[in-house]
């Protein structure tokens, strides 16, 4: 990696001041993705601002009034997976955190860093490929080896969004707290649904954050009572691998019970797909299939099929379509507590 100067603020106020003073400073949290980018010389900052010790960005707290969860952006995946309240009320989040990468990385990687990770496209990750994301003229994956790339919205840049945590967070309708040091460190709340940018919006960035902006926390609203939720992914290898496809399903059952509306009719369904598009992708068609219905194998199957509608695979990633359909089907059945098989050859 190229030489850089380093500074480590110990309060949010200090971090804000540092970032206001050095607007081009590159933020380091857990550092996992940053070190990777530095070592490949994909970023060559002159100043690295290490916010990993800022106490205001730590900790998991329940808001007593709203029941919403506030997760400090520096919360590690290990902490997230181990949190009893997360496991109980937002199980899909604990599932993604507990199964990502490796135990060592889960001890280092933070939730905020995960949301801001750069794509894992193997063309992007090699310095020798001047792709669109680096200001180049082409997306190499469109013509090259695209076995792991997007099957949706892939006309401009075929990256898949790398954040696993974004998949359940979006399904839980989370928002991110962001401060902008340039504007005096005022905190604002951005719904995660508005956070990610498509390549068509800006191919150089994956989210709306501008230089120096820091995610301080992630806010996840409390799910309605009896909500069922699950995060699943399919990996070729279980020890350490990138998912081929991911899905999070949140099922909110009908609140009132009557003869015509049994309790487990789905009132609201949130389905988000990962590793299939340049952003985490809401599967509206699949959600529509579930809404107002009782979850059965047939309905889950339909939802799985609906989730793949509109997919436009590239030359080498067509297998993602049947895999995604099946993954969504399983996630729906699991979220509804109706998964039929005792065994399956997948795990987180």
């Amino acid at each position, binding site marked *: 990696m190229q*030489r850089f100067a380093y500074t480590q603020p110990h309060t949010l106020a*200090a971090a804000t*001041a540092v970032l206001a003073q050095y607007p081009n400073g590159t933020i380091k949290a857990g*550092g996992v993705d940053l070190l990777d980018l530095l070592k490949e010389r994909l970023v060559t900052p002159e100043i690295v601002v290490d916010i990993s010790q800022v106490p205001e960005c730590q900790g998991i707290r329940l808001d007593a009034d709203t029941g919403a969860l506030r997760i400090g952006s520096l919360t590690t995946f290990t902490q997230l997976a181990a949190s009893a309240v997360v496991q109980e009320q937002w199980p899909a989040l604990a599932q993604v955190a507990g199964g990502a990468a*490796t*135990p060592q990385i889960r001890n280092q990687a933070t939730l905020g860093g995960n949301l801001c990770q750069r794509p894992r496209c193997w063309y992007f990750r090699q310095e020798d490929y001047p792709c669109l994301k680096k200001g180049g003229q082409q997306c190499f994956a469109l013509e090259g080896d695209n076995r792991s790339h997007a099957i949706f919205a892939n006309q401009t840049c075929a990256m898949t969004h790398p954040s696993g945590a974004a998949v359940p967070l979006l399904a839980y309708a989370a928002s991110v707290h962001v401060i902008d040091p340039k504007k005096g460190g005022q905190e604002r709340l951005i719904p995660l649904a508005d956070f990610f940018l498509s390549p068509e919006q800006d191919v150089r960035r994956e989210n709306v954050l501008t230089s120096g902006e820091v995610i301080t926390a992630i806010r996840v609203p409390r799910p309605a009572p009896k909500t069922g939720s699950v995060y699943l992914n399919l990996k070729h290898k279980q020890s350490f691998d990138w998912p081929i496809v991911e899905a999070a399903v949140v099922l909110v059952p009908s609140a009132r019970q009557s003869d015509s509306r049994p309790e487990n009719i789905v009132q609201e369904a949130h389905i988000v797909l990962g590793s299939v598009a340049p952003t985490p992708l809401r599967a509206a068609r699949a959600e529509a299939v579930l809404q107002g219905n009782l979850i059965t194998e047939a309905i889950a199957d339909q939802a799985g099929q609906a989730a793949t509608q509109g997919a436009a695979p590239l030359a080498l990633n067509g297998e993602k379509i049947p895999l995604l359909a099946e993954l969504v089907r399983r996630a729906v059945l699991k979220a509804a507590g109706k998964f039929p098989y005792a065994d399956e050859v997948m795990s987180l």
Partner: protein
Amino acid sequence: MKGKKTDPAASAAHNPDLSSGLTRRSFLKGAGVGTAGLSALHFSPLVTQVEDRPEIPPLLGPSPVPVRLEVNGRTYTVNVEPRLTLADVLRDHLDLTGTKVICDRGACGGCTVLLDNEPVVSCMQLAIAAQGKSIRTVEGLAQGAEQLDPLQEAFITHDALQCGFCTPGMLMSCRALLDRTRQPTLDEIKTAVSGNLCRCGTYPHVFAAVLAASGQEPNLVKE
């Protein structure tokens, strides 16, 4: 890239506080406690000033700066560039070469050390950011020269190593597991080392060694 661009340390050099690495707060604290005591400091107008306008921490580097690391209970101070990883400093500057750099991207666990008792990959950790934390490496497992850690003994007895290059990282992941789980299940063992690659294929013997070291039947591996 090859020329020297603006060196942030050069501008910081005009400010003795910043270039020396001594923060204004530590200076103030030292002064406060040493002269007037805490209550006096509480009313000091200087403190109000600090809280109103937060201090800017010093900018260190890019040239070598002193980095203080606590490794295996010993404190080392080395002069290194901020870009150096913890793995680089352990190996190249502290001669603690038990920690291996294998993939250099956090994917193989070869450089696993315990940072405040948690296994991390030291190749994806800046040394300068590991200050103030307790670092434990494979060299710190044995109690002195003679007394091996029971886990090390079990690795020998169950031949949980072949070429030996993944062994230090494996040991650290397993040590962390046993520190938090007295008798881990086979599944917990597999998960604990799931970030450690072994190219010789010694995993089953590693599982057996961890079972044995935790007082369990090593042959559980075969069932």
